[in-house]
């Protein structure tokens, strides 16, 4: 396997695919590493009906000379020009770890859902909105199942529409934002025809189920798995029976690798120049880690980064102009998904905030920082390394994640040993 590249791209969602394709088409040797079984990221996940844009990019990826490391997870950036990665589905431990070398690195690590803890949220069959969608696309039979969709953001409508199309009985969609907060987003949609078409498509599909605004789950009930959810709207509460709760409060960027690589983060996102270059020389970033803006923006930023990394600056600059209107959409989306402060009261004292280490709210209240809470309660110290509870504690307490350390994800001892051996050889 080739492990040395002119351009190495991390993340095979739309931004990463666009970056890899544009760089490879210009003659660069390109590696594309991604931890899922198939390329596409979350939005173009296999099993979903693909639009023409997705089909086009997939066929360009097939045609381009891109070395694909699918099912590989990056866990360290030991020094400039090198990433360490581990295969996720490997029995033979010797081949599980690889050092990937690059001249230029493009980080297209995407985003994850924000979860807010409420009583009962750890019950089986409560997932993220994108999470249940991913499972349904991954083969989970959803036809005839009662699904409640809740949280905030345009993803909810998309997920509800897709699950309904698969035969799920969507018993309701609870959006925490008030109508007037969402209205500003619709104005932005009119300025982006592609998004308007999507919205119209979802709008038709969504007449099939009730939509409640300023509404959110306050408790989930069930014996061993979810049976019903109590939701609240303007002080009134009622119970909805369901098989699944698909609940996500918009998206947060995956910043662990950019932070480990030393990229400057501002206001929760990676800062880049016009050509998607980060504060670190030869390291670019594209897509959701620079601002939650959806697939069109991710494709554009990926292309700019890919062209710039392949040394085609004028062509990259020619695309920059289109990005301006998309930046407006990023801001509109952020404001539409602004969380209601009342959501801070969802968790009760015994509600678990950290699911890996089972740390309840009451154990966290006395601490003033993420670091103190980690050291003294183990909150954020489990396998997910705070990827789930970090966003919750940021909202609940205003805590900021101040550092990341390798390994970024749990890896085998064999991979750490292999990595150290390789590092040793390099420095001798």
């Amino acid at each position, binding site marked *: 396997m080739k492990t040395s590249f002119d351009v190495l791209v991390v993340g095979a969602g739309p931004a990463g695919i666009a970056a890899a394709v544009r760089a490879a088409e210009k003659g660069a040797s390109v590696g594309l590493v991604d931890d899922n079984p198939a390329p596409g990221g979350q939005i173009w996940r296999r099993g979903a009906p693909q639009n023409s844009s997705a089909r086009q990019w997939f066929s360009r990826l097939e045609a381009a000379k891109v070395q694909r490391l699918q099912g590989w997870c990056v866990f360290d950036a030991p020094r400039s020009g090198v990433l360490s990665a581990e295969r996720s*589905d490997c029995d033979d431990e010797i081949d599980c770890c690889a050092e990937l070398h690059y001249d230029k690195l493009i980080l297209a690590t995407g985003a994850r859902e924000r979860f807010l803890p409420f009583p009962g949220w750890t019950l089986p069959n409560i*997932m993220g909105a994108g999470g249940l969608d991913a499972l349904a696309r991954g083969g989970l039979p959803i036809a005839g199942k009662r699904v409640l969709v809740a949280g905030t953001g345009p993803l909810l409508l998309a997920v509800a529409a897709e699950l309904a199309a698969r035969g799920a009985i969507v018993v309701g969609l609870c959006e925490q934002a008030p109508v007037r907060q969402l209205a500003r987003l619709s104005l932005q949609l009119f300025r982006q025809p592609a998004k308007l078409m999507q919205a119209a498509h979802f709008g038709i599909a969504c007449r099939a189920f009730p939509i409640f605004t300023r509404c959110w789950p306050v408790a989930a009930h069930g014996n061993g798995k979810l049976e019903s959810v109590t939701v609240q709207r303007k002080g009134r509460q009622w119970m909805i029976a369901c098989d699944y709760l698909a609940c996500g409060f918009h998206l947060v960027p995956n910043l662990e690798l950019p932070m480990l690589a030393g990229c400057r983060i501002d206001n929760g996102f990676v800062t880049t120049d016009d050509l998607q270059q980060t504060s670190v020389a030869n390291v670019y970033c594209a897509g959701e880690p620079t601002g939650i803006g959806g697939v069109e923006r991710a494709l554009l930023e990926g292309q700019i980064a890919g062209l710039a990394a392949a040394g085609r600056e004028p062509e990259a600059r020619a695309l920059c102009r289109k990005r301006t209107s998309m930046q407006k959409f990023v801001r509109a989306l952020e404001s539409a998904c602004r969380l209601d402060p009342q959501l801070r009261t969802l968790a009760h004292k015994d509600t678990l905030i950290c699911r890996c280490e089972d740390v309840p709210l009451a154990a966290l209240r006395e601490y003033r920082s993420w670091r103190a809470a980690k050291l003294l309660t183990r909150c954020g110290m489990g396998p997910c390394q705070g990827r789930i509870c970090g966003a919750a504690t940021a909202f609940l307490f205003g805590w900021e994640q101040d550092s990341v350390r390798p390994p970024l994800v749990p890896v085998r001892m064999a991979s750490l040993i292999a990595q150290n051996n390789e590092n040793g050889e390099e420095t001798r």
Partner: protein
Amino acid sequence: MPKPDHIELTVNGAALRVDAGTTVAAALLMCAAHARMSITGEPRAPLCGMGICYECRVTINGVPHQKSCQILCESGMDVQTP
């Protein structure tokens, strides 16, 4: 050779037949209520569905802590949950 349409695997010893391309996490939810037990003994099942949360980890072919949402079912696979 064409890929088979269906895959047979076992979950906690019970045979299960799924469509090709099904993730282990999806297979798990078809027949079991949970993937793992939390450190205080709560049953847990997939949350994020995309390899972030580690709630879906199971033992696959004897290898523990595998993220079932990012692994596809394979013929003869042995999946174990507590």
